[in-house]
């Protein structure tokens, strides 16, 4: 994984994108192979210790603390992330800064259950960011969003990368991946199919075949939903 990159992962349904993520984030244990962070073996570490080591994730299916306000949701992450802020006032302030960065500050005192899906996706990202990660795993953060929402989300990712965070990004929407990623890996049935710069990937025949089958090979890089 090169640092300060957005590294995209695409592949058809069931290719193993989310599984890969869960293994890196510690929710699932790999049956073989190792996961290394900065040369340190972190295979089998629990999610909460990986957060302290600077690895945070968002979820494809959002899981906000619904009975908490948006601010409190992020406050938890500020408290328990890498910064490990103990004082509640300081954690709230830190959380508020993250919310402002993501344009969620206007919803700070709203219950997480009562905000739109787009905002809940942003909240996922806000919580992960508030843990102050070096490596951020984004699982389908644009899934179910409108084109406008998707665009602003991708802008956010670019800004996060600029601030020095490395991003692993899984998305179904090939266009979105191609638009923001510095490098892309294509997975199929748990195997690495191809890897490289977005332009290289788009023209790789094996990738086109996996997505569209042999007959569709002419329709290069078209969106697959």
């Amino acid at each position, binding site marked *: 994984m090169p640092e300060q990159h957005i590294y995209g992962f695409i592949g058809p349904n069931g290719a193993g994108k989310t599984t890969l993520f869960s293994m890196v*984030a510690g*929710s699932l244990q790999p049956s073989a192979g190792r996961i290394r962070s900065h040369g340190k073996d972190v295979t089998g570490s*629990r*999610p*909460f*210790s990986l*957060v*302290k080591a600077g690895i*945070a*994730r968002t*979820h494809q299916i959002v*899981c*906000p*603390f*619904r*009975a*908490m*306000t948006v601010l*409190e949701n992020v*406050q*938890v*992450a500020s*408290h*328990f*992330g*890498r910064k490990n*802020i*103990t*004082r*509640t006032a300081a*954690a709230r302030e830190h959380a508020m800064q993250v919310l402002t960065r993501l344009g969620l500050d206007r919803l700070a005192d709203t*219950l997480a*259950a*009562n905000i739109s899906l787009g905002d809940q996706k942003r909240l996922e990202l806000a*919580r*992960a960011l*508030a*843990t102050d990660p070096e490596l951020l795993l984004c699982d389908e953060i644009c899934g179910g969003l409108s084109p406008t929402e998707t665009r602003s989300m991708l802008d956010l990712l670019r800004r996060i990368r600029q601030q020095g965070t490395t991003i692993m990004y899984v998305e179904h929407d090939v266009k979105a991946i191609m638009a923001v990623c510095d490098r892309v890996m294509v997975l199929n049935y748990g195997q690495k199919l191809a890897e490289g710069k977005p332009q290289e990937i788009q023209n790789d025949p094996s990738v086109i075949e996996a997505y569209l089958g042999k007959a569709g090979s002419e329709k290069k890089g078209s969106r697959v939903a």
Partner: protein
Amino acid sequence: MTVASAPSRLEARARNLLPWLLLAVLALLPSAGLTANITRLLFVTFVWVTTSLGWNLLGGFAGQVSFGFAVFYGLGAYTAALLIDRGVNPYLSFVFAGVIPAVASIFIGLPTFRLRGPYFAIATIGVSEATRVIMNNLAITGGASGYRIMEQRPFRQVEHYYTALGMAALAVAVSFLIQHSKFGMGLRAIKQDEAAAADLGVNPYAYKLAIHAVAAALTGIAGGVLARYAAFINPQGVFAFQTSVYILLMPVIGGIGTVWGAVLGGVVFGVVEEQLVANFPQIHLLLYGALLILIILLEPDGLAGLLGKLYRRLRTPKRTDGSTHSGSRETDEVLRRAGSG
């Protein structure tokens, strides 16, 4: 918002002052002259309030429903009983009545917190029953025939009253401190979604063990304070499954997850239980069960939730759309439930 801010600040100050006022009134009550019976009733209520607050830490704050709190109550009672009987200062004994159950809670928690939700609850029943059976057969505590405490000091009811009042105040203070801390935030996160909490850096297992220990300590001290007053304890009393259920029901009736709800539950239980037993000795459990079903059906947030609703209705008589801003978390929970079901 700006219009409402002045009275709400006043309101917040009143809310901060209320606990102190309550404590002052309760502290002055004995000098105003209380009958022995009322003093005893208040004493017992303070004990129940403490156990209710203890259970609420684990059940209300962290969302772990335990049917095993009689273990801590009983262990605290027996620890205090054995020590006081051997001439140890009663207040030092109460410290041990907190420490021993806290240690026990770690051993109970290590295996049972591997389980989630109802499976955890069922496991705690097993632990509770096993402890009762052991205590029934343990020779040094007199087994099933119970244990009589011979204290070398004269009995002064008002001393017991102040001990119990101080203990209940301690339980309230501990609850508020935890609620407004990082620790409390972690527990709330665990209560709502353990996996998501872990993904944000909370260690659910360690946190559950920690709050279990604090809850056990408070419950154990309550058991110890009661044992000293009662001067006689037996396993069928303090270790009974019924005791576990009582301890669980109080915060449920009062309002689970809120400090004042747990207090209210303890007070209602202390007083109502007494009246029910006195007036309907044969069917008091039946009446109690009916009361509980009514509360759970009509007001899942307990009496505290009900009072909160009434209060808000009185304050905002014209707004009926339910969109009024609410400052309290309990309200938010109510709104959430109303919205989802």
